[in-house]
């Protein structure tokens, strides 16, 4: 089986609850690639949860085919299918009368693993989601916080190492701070486990953060646009998508580009704080820049100085302590969004870029950000023009 074959294929899947009413899901065809997080996102009632539940046949499709790893599973035993798919729901649904370990071991038990293997696997999973097995193994769900319960829910879904996970607004019921942390933890976890994940949310920001690809769904689960987050942000195909991703989509797009990928400008002269004012002044005058950057003895940016600062006092004194402090400072692996934020908070048109050790590496200008936005839009548009040309 090749890696290019999709992990899940929905082929014209439709769900009707009655003959007369419009379908809940209308002839949906969709591929989910191996190892990706595909996010289904859309307004309430668009059928995204129904679509998810069609995949593990919690809801039986009225027509169409579901192909799972090359195998048509539309008519196989639904329980067999579900034991091969991890399933996480918003309210988690931990079994309150079972310990955390028993909860996590549910599917392995259904699959008939022996006790030793189950308990080994359980401990391994609790470790993986950041819960100390010796502390949590024998606790009951009511003793957990919302965030911990959600981690156990994820561990339980991973228990039998299923290739696919379905997640229905998994982080919807926790507070924003915990949600953010759980999202980050989950992305890190995904780096390790590389599952194929279908993830449902109504929150476009969560979709952008979590998705390798995003399917924006309109009513009856019709796909409005299916693409990478950055391309959707750069080029919403129609008004519906544009409305749904909301204002600030361009800014959100800056999350996907990193400072280190830009060509940093080195237009600003820089000196050590032990340099004399006179020499620095001459250096500044020789350049086109209005400011020079003062670094400390370890090469870390300290202050901006201009000609006026340098003209004060004796030219032989050092530049130490002159001029305003550098506020807009970002690391190379920061996103352009971080850089923009730094620029805005410091009300400067540029941000100083430093390496991991804090040493100066260059400066990013606000014009570079607008240039990146222009380029992303042009690329996305060209991509869609090519698609249309082919069609």
């Amino acid at each position, binding site marked *: 089986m090749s890696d290019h074959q999709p992990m899940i294929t929905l082929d014209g899947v439709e769900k009707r609850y009655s003959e007369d009413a419009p379908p809940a899901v209308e002839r949906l065809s969709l591929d989910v690639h191996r190892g990706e997080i595909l996010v289904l996102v859309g307004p309430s009632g668009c059928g995204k949860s129904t679509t998810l539940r069609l995949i*593990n046949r*919690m809801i039986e499709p009225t027509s169409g085919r579901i192909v799972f790893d090359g195998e048509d599973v539309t008519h196989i035993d*639904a*329980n*067999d*299918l*579900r*034991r*091969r798919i991890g*399933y996480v*729901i918003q*309210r*988690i*649904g*931990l*079994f*309150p*009368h*079972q*310990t955390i370990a028993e909860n996590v071991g*549910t*599917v392995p038990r*259904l699959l008939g693993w022996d006790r030793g293997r189950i308990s080994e696997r359980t401990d391994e999973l609790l470790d993986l989601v950041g819960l100390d097995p010796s502390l949590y193994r024998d606790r*009951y*769900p*009511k*003793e957990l916080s919302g965030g911990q319960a959600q981690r156990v829910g994820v561990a*339980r*879904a991973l228990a039998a190492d299923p290739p696919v996970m379905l997640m229905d607004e998994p982080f919807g019921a926790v507070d924003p701070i915990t949600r953010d942390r759980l999202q980050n933890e989950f992305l890190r976890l995904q780096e390790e486990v590389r599952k194929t994940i279908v993830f449902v949310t109504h929150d476009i920001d969560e979709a952008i953060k979590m998705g390798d690809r995003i399917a924006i769904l309109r009513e009856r689960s019709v796909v409005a646009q299916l693409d990478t987050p950055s391309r959707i942000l750069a080029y919403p195909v129609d008004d519906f998508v544009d409305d749904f991703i909301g204002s600030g989509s361009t800014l959100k797009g800056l999350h996907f580009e990193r400072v280190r990928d830009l060509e940093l400008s080195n237009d600003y002269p820089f000196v050590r704080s032990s340099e004399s004012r006179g020499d620095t002044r001459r250096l500044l005058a020789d350049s086109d820049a209005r400011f020079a950057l003062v670094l400390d003895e370890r090469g870390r940016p300290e202050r901006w100085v201009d000609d006026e600062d340098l003209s004060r006092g004796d030219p032989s004194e050092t530049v130490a302590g002159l001029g305003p402090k550098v506020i807009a400072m970002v690391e190379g692996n920061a996103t352009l969004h971080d850089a923009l934020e730094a620029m805005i908070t410091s009300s400067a048109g540029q941000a100083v870029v430093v390496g991991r050790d804090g040493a100066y590496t260059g400066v990013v200008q606000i014009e570079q950000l607008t240039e990146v936005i222009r380029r992303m839009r042009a690329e996305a548009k060209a991509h869609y023009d090519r698609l249309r040309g082919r069609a």
Partner: protein
Amino acid sequence: MTATATASDPATGGPRDRWSPRDDLGLVVTPFVLLAVLAAYLTWLGAQDLPQQAASAITGDKLLTQTREQITITALSTLGVLVIAIPLGIALTRPWGKRFAGPALAVANAGQSIPAFGLLVIALAVLGRVFGRAQDNILQNTIGEALGPGLVISVFALILFAILPILRNTMVGLQQVDPDVIEAGLGMGMTRREVLWRIELPLAVPVMLAGVRTALVINVGMATLAFLIGGGGLGVAIRSGIQLAQNVVVVTGGVLTALLALSVDWVGAVAERILRPKGL
């Protein structure tokens, strides 16, 4: 009915992380208190100078037999209710059985609203003929012979009478199981049957047991009326006392009935304590 109120206790009672002896203090002390009261009463009774008539109505032998009959009626009728009401309650909460829930509850309600005496008489009228035609039917030849037809008929009547609390608590217990928990179970590939046995029933147990306890208490009380159709029990002593105009005899029957009812309730409480799943 107060029985269903206990369902919410685990939820509102907060986490019960550590067992403390105080939780079970009542359960431990109750049997000793009951025994002490019994011993005190019997001592007092022994010290009485009773008329011949009264003394012969409450000999140790008679009281033991009557108590045994009372317990037999209670145990058998409660067992009968369990066997009928729990499967019925499960059936009526399944997707295919839901539409019968209303009518079934109406019948069960009616069973409890009919005065107990009326129910006994109806049961006697219906079943008495079965047991009356002796020798040639299995019922009479087996349990009728062993326990006496009156007692068996009383058991049947009490089964009808006490179905409601167990039936209703089974249904309520199953209905109050968090749908997300069931969804999670099904979503992981548990069959409907596995979900019922491993998730729904264990989670419904506290509410169901509260119903069982109610049924036990109803039955032990109602068994006192079994004497009306010749079923025996402690009602016999009470009736003798009334007929002989001997208050001591009436009170003796009454005290024993009350102590028995309290003991049965205690057994129910112990069962609730032991069978309640951990983690709730």
